Every structure is written in C-alpha cells, then in structure tokens.
C-alpha cells in the first residue's frame, strides 16, 4: 500500500523574541493509504503544529515531510486534502450552502458536481434544513457539522481532522464516527487528533502518542496495549506513558 504521509525527523521551533519553544523534536511517522491514524497527546504536545505542517501552513525547519509524495507547501498537494479545524467561527453572514459553494469554487469543482455534492454533504451532517440559514444563528455543534462538511467538499483522499467530535452531542458523535468509518471503507486516508481517547481507540487503525514534541509510541491500539495488564484502557496507558516521561 502506498504511503500517503511520510514524516522523517520533523522539527519545528517557535521563536518569540529571545524565547524559543521546541514544538516538534524530530518526529518520525508514516500513514498508509486507507488507514485511520489517530494522533493523541496532551495540550502543547505538538499535534496542531504537525497538522499545520501537513497542510503546508508551516514549513518544516528540519527533516522531511511529504503528502502523496509531494511537499505540502505546494498548493497542488492540497487539491486532494480535506481539513477540519478544531475551532472555526465560519463566516457568520453566509449560509452553510454558500460557504460550501465558496470552498467548492476554490477547489475548482464544476457547478453541477458541486451542487450535487453540497446536497449530499448537508444531508450527511444533518444540516439540510438549516442550509439556507445564516451561520450567525448556529450553535457550536452546528458549526462543527459545517466544518466537517466543508472538509469533505473536494471528496478528499486524505482527510485531516482536528478534534472532529468536540462540541457535538452524543448522537452526532456517533454519526461522525460512522462517516469516518464509511470514508475508510471507500479507501480514504484519515489523520486525526483528539483528546477523546476512547474514540481514538474505537476508530483508529494506528495511534501515535505525542508528548512535548516527541513521538513516544505508535502502533495499533492492540500493539500499544499488548503485553500490558489485562483490561487496561488506552486512557490508563496514555496516562502511564506520559507519567513515565514526566
């Protein structure tokens, strides 16, 4: 299977005046085609920095990173990538439909395909009834659904999701999980970060544990928990591995 993401010795340091914060200290990982890769780690671990590097928003200072064999900074690479941010207060004076049209046009999707896809996506995220409402009237959960829909507007081969279920009610969470599974079945690659460890455990093929810019461990949930005490959850494993590092 083709490697969709390859990260080798990925390093990134934020500089603010004389202060230096090492966000990533040589991270290595790869994601295969059709795989769901869950990225977990506490706040400030470097998850968002990794996502920004994957999207070409930041340039790696050291190491190598490729997405579909290309540099993420090249806009063409992003043609087949979908991204859902953790929080985004989408244009409040637009309707979800208008937002999707705008993003669809940026991707250069033809009018007919776009309108058909928008219908499907709004249905998928249960927003068909609110498609003509201005987003300024939307709750956080509804915004999150819009965010999910926009990430799928280009029918991406790689989907990068940052906390995809935060702010959603339990029913919507379940629905989102199902959609992610459906996408996997269609051969899409999914890279996502989450604080919800049980969720990561449920849907990920492989998991990467990031802490203070270092990838502490990676593998399937079984591998990570294998050989450990029976009945141990990902949460207790995570707390343990982080505790050891402290």
């Amino acid at each position, binding site marked *: 299977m083709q490697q969709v993401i390859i990260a080798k010795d990925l390093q990134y340091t*934020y500089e603010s005046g004389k202060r230096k914060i090492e966000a990533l200290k040589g991270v290595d990982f790869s994601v295969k085609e059709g795989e769901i890769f869950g990225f977990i780690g506490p706040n400030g671990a470097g998850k968002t920095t990794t996502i*920004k590097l994957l*999207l*070409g*928003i*930041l340039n790696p200072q050291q190491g190598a990173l490729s997405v579909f064999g290309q540099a993420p900074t090249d*806009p*063409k*690479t*992003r*043609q087949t*990538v979908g*991204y*859902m*941010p953790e*929080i*985004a*207060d*989408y*244009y409040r*004076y*637009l309707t979800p439909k*208008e937002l999707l*049209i*705008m*993003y669809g*046009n*940026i*991707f*250069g999707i033809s009018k007919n395909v776009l309108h058909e896809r928008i219908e499907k996506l709004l249905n998928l995220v249960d927003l068909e009834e609110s498609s003509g409402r*201005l987003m300024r009237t939307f709750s956080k959960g509804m915004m999150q659904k819009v*965010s999910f829909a*926009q*990430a799928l507007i280009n029918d991406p081969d790689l989907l*990068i999701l940052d906390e995809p279920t935060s702010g959603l009610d339990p029913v919507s969470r379940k629905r989102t999980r199902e959609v992610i599974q459906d996408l996997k079945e269609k051969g899409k690659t999914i890279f996502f970060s989450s604080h919800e460890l049980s969720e990561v455990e449920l849907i990920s093929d492989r998991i990467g544990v990031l802490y203070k810019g270092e990838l502490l461990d990676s593998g399937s949930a079984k591998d990570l928990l294998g050989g450990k005490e029976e009945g141990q959850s990902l949460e207790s494993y995570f707390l343990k591995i982080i505790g050891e590092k402290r």
Partner: protein
Amino acid sequence: MKAIWAIAHGVIKELIRKKDFYVLLIFMLVLLGFLSYQTFFQIEGISRYVRDFGYSLVMLFSFIIAVTFTAKQIPSEIGARTIYPLLAKPLSRQKIILGKFLGGTMVSVISFTVFYLIFVGFYMTGGEGKSLVLLGQGFIFGILFLCMVSALVMFFSNFMTLSANITSTFLIYIAMGSVSEALKSNALFFKGIISGLYGFLYYLLPHFEFFDLRIRITHAWDALPLWVVFSVSGYTFLYCFVLLYFSGYVFGRKRF
C-alpha cells in the same frame, strides 16, 4: 481566477448582509434631500453646494466602506480561525490576498456605484454646465481611487491592527491633499539630499488628490484630457501592483 473570485464573492455577500452600507445609503439620501430642499433667501436653483456636498459624501462613504471592509478581511479570518481552512485549500497565499483585495474593491465599487448614481440624479436635476464626460471621468476616477485605498489597506493589514490600519489610512487620506503640495514645492525648492528626500516622500505616498474631481464637477470645469485619465489609471495599476506584491510577499512569509 475562479478561486480569487470565490473569495471576493464571500466579501460581497458580507456587504449585502451587513447594515453598514444601508445606513450610509439612507444617511446620504436624507442629507442630499435636505440640502436640495433647503432654500436661501427664496433664491431658486442654487446647485453647486449640493453638488459639492454630494460628491464629497459619495467619496467619503465609499472610502469608509473600502477601508472598513478591506481592513478587517485578514484580521477577521485570523480571529475567527477560518484562515486555517482557507490556507488548507489549494491556493497560494498571494491568491488569498488578491481575493480579499478584489472583494474589498468590489464591495466599495458596488457601494460607490449606488452612491454615485444617486449623486448623478441630484446633479442632473439642476444647475449649469452638466457634463456627462466629466461625470464619466468622475466615475472612473472613483473606482481607481477605491482600488488604491483597498490596496493600501490590504498592505497595512499585514503590519497593523485593525484600528491602527483604519486610522492610518484615514490620516493619509486627509493629509495627502495638503502634504502632497508641500512636498512637491519643497522638492523643487530645495537642492541636494533634502530635495531628494522630499521627492522620495512625494513619490512614495499615494496621491489620493489625483482622483478628486470634486471642484471640476461642482464648478463645471472642463473635463480632463484623455492622457491624464490614462496616466492616472496607469499610476493606480502600478501603485496597486507594488502594494499587493509586497502584501503577498509579507503574507506568504507570515506564520500562522
């Protein structure tokens, strides 16, 4: 181009959905109506001061829309964190700047067109020396002026906060009328390095006064020669190009 236009289209939607434009439109109608209705010593047909106020209001209100809409484009994307999904799309940062610039310009040009049509309505109802050529030139110069303003604001938004950006642009707009003349006189009067300094400032600052046809339209002066219209257009395109080039460069290197 489709991507640039898609971003610009979003900004235009904002103009339609927000109240700013409608407030200014009503304010303008009320003010112009009041001025036209007012009589002085039962003298009929006083028109120049209505034209004067009308043209000034058109330019000022369009300027306000251009500045306020363009200035908040990038900061609001960052504030609402919508910049991330936008940056994750397959378009370069320079195209984002171009899209936002086009949006700001389109928004102000649409507002300007509506305001200008109202002004033309008042202009045509009374007074002497009506010149369609001059009105046409006023329209073209208005559009060019708004392009300049949007480009300048877009450039400033890379370095300044929203309020600092708006204030700086307003100050330049107000000051250029008199500063430009002083700079030019001093550049000609002094010699050597001081003259060079004044000359440099003269060329560096945006010459908003080039676009001001208020006196010509109000007092029915002759229309401008064609070469001036072309020169001012050329000047605007070059100036905007430089500003947008730098904006794109700075925005491209910005860390989000």
